[in-house]
């Protein structure tokens, strides 16, 4: 009640429109500020085609993970297993390719594996009725364990040239990982804005009981959400092994933190029901540019972690502060 009454307390027209501006353009604004800051501190680091494409390429894996994570948060849940799904999918895809399966078939199978791992998450959430936090905390460890077992804790490499070349090439100057991330984001934007299922997922995030009484099959859509998250993580895992040139058993460890951060910084409500794919992409770019910028400014990576953590807390606090401004 307390927070609700705060939320209800509204001021004059002017403040409200400021808040609306913030909600609409806040994340884009942060991104712009970061770009400008970097441009002032180290102009050479940003004003070149290669640096821009480098930032985008580096962000693409996180963006792929984040747009899937977004759906899990949208139903007021979470998916902590995305990093492990990426690692396991990457590992199995690598094994298939090294074992002689043609790259395109292996990629297709890899995506199916991602979907299957997401299915297991959704199945367990629906069957046990436990919060997705618990379930995916468990599967995070399980999937990582399977990755270690199947790989014998060793990296797998020696992929067909066509695969590594393909991932690291560019089409019309745009790196393939970026194209993949953009395509997935575009498809998911369409899904959220134009399909009944997308709308239903927002409904579940807003009010699960009312959604159920309105005929929305909550379990079916919960399943769908985790499958989407699994597919996105699977694609991220495949992009990752292509970029690195090897599948490592410890790949993408902790990446779920960045994915969650991108979703939250991108304006997704932790209470469910609110957020946009586009915002999450911007959130991913914000994280990408901070990482890139700090590297360019030769800040040690341990400090980068601190900045990242601070940013998550700051952005959500700021959002709250503005939303409850009297």
């Amino acid at each position, binding site marked *: *009640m*307390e927070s*609700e*009454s705060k939320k*209800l*307390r*509204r*001021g*004059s*027209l002017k403040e*409200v*429109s400021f808040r609306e501006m913030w909600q609409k353009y806040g994340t884009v604004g942060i991104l712009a500020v970061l770009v400008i800051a970097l441009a002032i501190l180290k102009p050479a680091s940003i004003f070149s085609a290669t640096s821009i494409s480098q930032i985008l390429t580096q962000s693409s894996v996180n963006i792929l993970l984040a747009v899937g994570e977004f759906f899990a948060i949208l139903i007021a849940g979470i998916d902590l297993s995305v990093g492990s799904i990426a690692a396991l999918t990457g590992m199995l895809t690598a094994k298939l390719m090294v074992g002689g399966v043609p790259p395109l078939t292996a990629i297709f199978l890899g995506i199916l594996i991602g979907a299957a791992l997401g299915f297991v998450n959704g199945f367990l959430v629906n069957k046990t009725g436990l919060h997705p936090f618990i379930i995916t905390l468990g599967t995070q460890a399980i999937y990582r364990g399977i990755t270690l077992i199947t790989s014998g804790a060793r990296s797998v490499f020696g992929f067909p040239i066509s695969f590594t070349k393909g991932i690291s090439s560019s089409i019309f100057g745009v790196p393939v990982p970026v194209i993949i991330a953009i395509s997935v984001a575009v498809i998911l934007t369409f899904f959220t*804005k*134009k*399909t*009944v*299922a*997308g*709308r*239903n997922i*927002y*409904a579940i*995030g*807003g*009010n699960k*009981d*009312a*959604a*159920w*009484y*309105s*005929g*929305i*099959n909550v379990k*079916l*859509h919960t399943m*769908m959400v985790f499958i989407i998250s699994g597919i996105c993580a699977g694609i991220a895992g495949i992009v990752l092994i292509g970029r690195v040139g090897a599948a490592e058993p410890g790949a993408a460890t902790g990446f779920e933190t960045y994915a969650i951060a991108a979703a939250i910084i991108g304006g997704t409500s932790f209470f*469910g*029901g*609110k957020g946009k794919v586009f915002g999450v992409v911007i959130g991913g770019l914000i994280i990408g540019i901070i990482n890139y910028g700090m590297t360019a400014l030769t800040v040690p990576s341990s400090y980068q972690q601190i900045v990242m953590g601070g940013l998550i807390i700051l952005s959500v606090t700021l959002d709250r502060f503005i939303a409850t401004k*009297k």
Partner: protein
Amino acid sequence: MGSLVKMKNITKKFPGVTALDNISFDIEPGEVHVLLGENGAGKSTLMKILSGVYRPTSGKITVNEKEYDYLTPKDSYENGISIIYQELSVINELSIMENIFVGKIPVKTIMGIRVIDYPTMRQKASEALLKVGLIRDMNVFVENISISEKQQLEIAKALVSNAEIIVMDEPTTSLTISETEHLFKIIKQLKSEGKGIVYISHKMKEIKEIGDRVTVLKDGTYVGTRKVDEVEIDELVTMMVGRTIHGTYHNKNISDFKNEPVILEVKNISKKDGKVKNVSFKTHKGEILGFAGLVGSGRTELMDTIFGSGPKSYGEVFLNGRKLDIKNPYNSIKYGLAMVTENRRETGFMDNFDIKQNISVISNLKKSKAGGTIGLLDDKGEVEKAQIQVKDLRVKCTSIHQNITELSGGNQQKVILGKWMGVGTEFIIFDEPTKGIDVGSKSEIYELMRRLAEDGKGVIVVSSELPELLSVCDTICVFKDGKIIDTFDIKNVTEEKIVSASTGESGKVKEVN
């Protein structure tokens, strides 16, 4: 005698709408000041300014001889103002006792450490619960109690803080006659203690029964204040709506529906937990079937069972002669069933959706396939449909893109009704359909129900308001202990008969009325 509170020249603007325009209002000790007005008139907004939820755009509030530009929730609490909000604010995840003390947990100091004072808490809670007649284990989680019990709990919450001013924003929407009587006894007691009460309700009869003064608002402006003794209900209604309404809605059905085809037939429905026991009934074309009964009699459980929203159960349901296989609400909606649920905040609307999105939930689902997973949204169709419903039901809003939580309670209810209209519904269950809806709109909704029935749709109305059942239904079933214990034809039924059937004690009738 000085007023307990004086609100002077209060104006409150929201984006695109002036909810209150220069309103003055005061509360005297020992009086019940009724606040009256159509849906969206500004009643709740005025009271939320008093409780500190909103800040007025301009105006002054004087409490305890101190003048404020606005009150914070803390100011309001410390000045002895307590409010029962229209939308129940109890927390399902807490126990009954914990709910009573949300935000005001009693503490005591033991050896310099402040600890929760559980004995005081228990004692105060049980006193308050006894007062409102909520006889329940205090440790029960609120998600397990019925909506009327939640409303009683809200009242208990307001009592426990020993407030000087108690605002009741539609406290009886979910209460039946005897519970309402109980509340009125409490109000009289509070009055005699010199407390001031603001009472908001759309049940006009209650005003005469409990009110001392009444202030009428219309579209955020002040219409007038009268002494209840010196004014007739008709005059108040005219002040409210700005025109005369001749009488209330009366059942105009004269057709002999008994020879018409059966629309819905329910055969031997039972629930595992025994809340519904072997219930059978039929509805005919052109017939509106009402369900009366006390709280906890199992009416809502029965409807949940038919609609598929409750747990698995036994029995058969036929719609237009076809046996239905219902496992969940999705199945029943696909068959053409609809249900307006009794608790709009918990099961009625999505609070992250605007009016248009809330209205289109059902139509979207209907045109999609595979459990609602395959299908595209039709933006233009959604806009059109929402506009039609908003116009038909006269929803007061700035646009169909306004978030539903920004609407007044009665207007939210209208949106919920709207989402089931024009979607090819064959059979509709209305569970407390006019909760929070003003007198003028009520008769329009009754006419809407009649039109549905005349169009050959099946209609069931569950209501705790007997005048509502009597004015809209053709047949009234009285539900008790999970069974239909009596069925009345509208031609030979009175409130007394229903009450005595539902309590099972004919001697009690006099006391209740």
